[in-house]
């Protein structure tokens, strides 16, 4: 898969008008890079001219009131918004310097590198094993023993192995909501993505399950680059290294979480994190 992307990169290196170095906000360690990135739903301008970078191996939280464009931005990173009719983007969004919206980019390869966990747990109506193995099998034929190893490793990483090791053939639909969400994370991890996008992964879960997912995020940080959209200010403060605050489609403030939560530069950020609106 890397080979494909390599080719794309070489062929269209001229597309990359702005190199990562040219972006003042980005450091050399950014794996995902947005600059002047806008999203339109028809005529509605959902994300306005956003420039930010996700640092490799770090957790970035994206916060903001409903309808501020944070989910839209997140879903653009693995082009999930392609499914939405009338969705259009301008500006640059790059994964390791490769334009994500280049017309000749292989979306399938992109999505293998950028995994996603959705707001509501959405395991397939298949067995637990098949759920985790799904993405791996898509890559091509693989030996059963290898697949078993990958499934076990992914479930272990998602802190689910001990709970399900005896019923891998049970239907995933029968699990609890928290377990389902961790299964979805395991499923995403199984294809070893570089970036993991989480779209309010805990909003449908009870506090206990939420705590487990948060622990999991903490464990995964470092190994994966994680972007998490959340409504929960405490959660953002707890799990993330960087925080981006979106408001009405604009990136209002982006910086280290500690700073954003203790000493926000912008008044709107301050109002939001202190609960005055949103």
């Amino acid at each position, binding site marked *: 898969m890397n080979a494909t992307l390599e080719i794309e990169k070489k062929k269209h290196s001229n597309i990359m008008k702005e190199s990562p170095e040219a972006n003042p906000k980005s450091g050399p360690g950014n794996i995902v890079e947005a600059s002047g990135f806008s999203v339109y739903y028809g005529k509605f301008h959902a994300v306005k001219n956003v420039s930010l970078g996700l640092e490799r191996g770090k957790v970035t939280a994206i916060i903001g009131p409903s309808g501020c464009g944070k989910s839209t931005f997140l879903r653009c990173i693995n082009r999930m918004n392609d499914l939405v009719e009338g969705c259009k983007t301008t500006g640059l969004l790059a994964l390791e310097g490769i334009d994500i919206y280049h017309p000749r980019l292989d979306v399938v390869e992109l999505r293998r590198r950028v995994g996603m966990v959705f707001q509501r747990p959405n395991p397939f*109506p298949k067995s637990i094993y098949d759920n985790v193995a799904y993405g791996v099998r898509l890559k091509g034929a693989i030996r059963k023993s290898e697949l078993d190893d990958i499934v076990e490793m992914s479930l272990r990483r998602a802190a689910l192995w001990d709970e399900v090791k005896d019923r891998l053939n049970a239907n995933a639909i029968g699990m609890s909501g928290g377990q389902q969400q961790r299964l979805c994370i395991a499923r995403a991890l199984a294809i070893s993505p570089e970036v993991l996008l989480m779209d309010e992964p805990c909003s449908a879960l009870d506090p206990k399950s939420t705590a487990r997912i948060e622990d999991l995020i903490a464990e995964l940080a470092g190994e994966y680059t994680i972007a998490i959209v959340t409504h929960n200010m405490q959660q953002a403060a707890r799990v993330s290294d960087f925080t981006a605050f979106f408001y009405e489609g604009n990136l209002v403030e982006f910086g280290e979480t500690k700073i954003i939560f203790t000493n926000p530069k912008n008044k709107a950020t301050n109002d939001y994190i202190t609960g005055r609106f949103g």
Partner: protein
Amino acid sequence: MTTRTRKLLDKSFTAIAYSSLALMAAAVAVFLLPIIINGSNAFIFDATVEHEKFLCENLDYDETASIKERVGRSQAARAPLYEMFNKFEYSGLSAQIERSINATRAEALKKISESGEEMSRIVSLPREKRKAAADAFSAEIWKSYIAEVDRMVKSAHSDGTSFSLAEILSLQKDGISDLCKESIAKAGKFGFSQRNLLRRALTTDVTAILTERKESLRRENAAYETFKRGVSELLGPETDAEKESLKLTRQKYGQPRMDLAREVFKNSIEQITIHDRDENGNEISTRVKTEEFFKGTPVEKMFSYIKKNFDAMMQPHYTVYLGFFFDNPYDSNIFGGIWPMILGTFYLTVGAMLIAAPLGIIAAIYFAEYAANNSFVSFLRVCVGTLAGVPSIVFGLFGLAFLINTLKVSESKSVLAGSITLALLILPTIIRSCEEALKSVPNSYREAALGLGAGKWKAICTVILPSALPAMLTGIIISMGRAAGETAPIIFTAATSTGAALAITEIFTQATPALPWNIYNICSEHEMAERVAHVQYGMVLTLIAIVLSLNFAAIWLRARMQKRTRV
């Protein structure tokens, strides 16, 4: 609105809902119960010994000891009846009758030859007196002869000799003119015109009387023939030789079912039709009671014998004839089962499914997953909708005109052409239901699959189709039920009213009987529709059972698969 009114409204809605449910259940019961009762009558019924004879001789059923015993008992019970028939038709009395009639005739002729003077007197009388005198003379001559004939006719009724007597009287009538001529010649010398005059005078009346007596016997004989036909319809032919000479299966065997046997007894034995002439000479037929018509004759004894020994002759036997579903029909469904129709329906339905299901699913996938929201797709959707509304007879004509006449998929009607036509008929429904099923798959499944790096086609194959499958199968199976029951499309393309069960290799070239068409055919175009009423109901029940079991299979399948796939 007060709480009271709200509660009242709630309750009344509940009541309306319940009553409409009850009404539906009642409608189903009113509709289905008669079909079930009458339909099961096709294979669970009181069979007669004739039914078993037919099965053993034509369908290689085992002739078990109990069947042999019943056949034997029925033959024993029938033997006295056939004895009576024989006695009645070939009476030993006939020679005696002929002798005694001939004796009186000889006497009369002798009298003629001895009455030369009397006859001379009569011919010499003036014209106006001559007629009366001649008639009186003739009456005098034939008096004892006529008396003898009348005596015979009268006793013929009770002796059962009317058959032979009619024959004898016919011979007498033919011979009498010549014999008179001879006797007149013996009596003396008369001129030509005198001779003719005498002969006319002597023969006219007696011939008329003989004819009249014979006619009276013939009427009785015809009635007897009718009666006997009724008996042979009930019991079948008497001997094997007679059976061999008959062509139709229905003539070779008596009534196979007790209900039909009773019907035949009532219509053709207990009452018979006799033909008379009214005063204008037109033939009129009247129904008479056998018992009254043949009162005091041997036929009355036969009738009461049949009545008394009806069960012994038919040997009723409560039977579950499962062969009704697996045997070939004989003689336009009067005997045997409905296997070719069942098999034909199966071929047509499965054939239609094999064509329509893949096409329908592919089209549905296109509509649900790929089609853009443009005017061309809308146009396609309208087309599918229109196709769903086209009357089925039009599909039938299309199948004939396009598939058979233009494309020549087969030389004439064939299962293949019928299947394609049925497939086109149900295609819109399948597309619709499959599209709905695909659209009802939660979008999150699509997102999850795509998010894991599945291509669109992969996502459809591995996640979306499996989740939509229960609902899709439901739609497909219900369409299958519709295909099984459609009549109009197969009239022109696949159905024949009679025919053997097809082998799988023949379906590309051969037409087949099929339940829906044969139900129509047997009800409306069968020459003996009322005699195969049980087969009509049996076919209807079978068809309904097939369609209902398909529908139940759909429900079961959906329930089973939903349990596995949905929350």
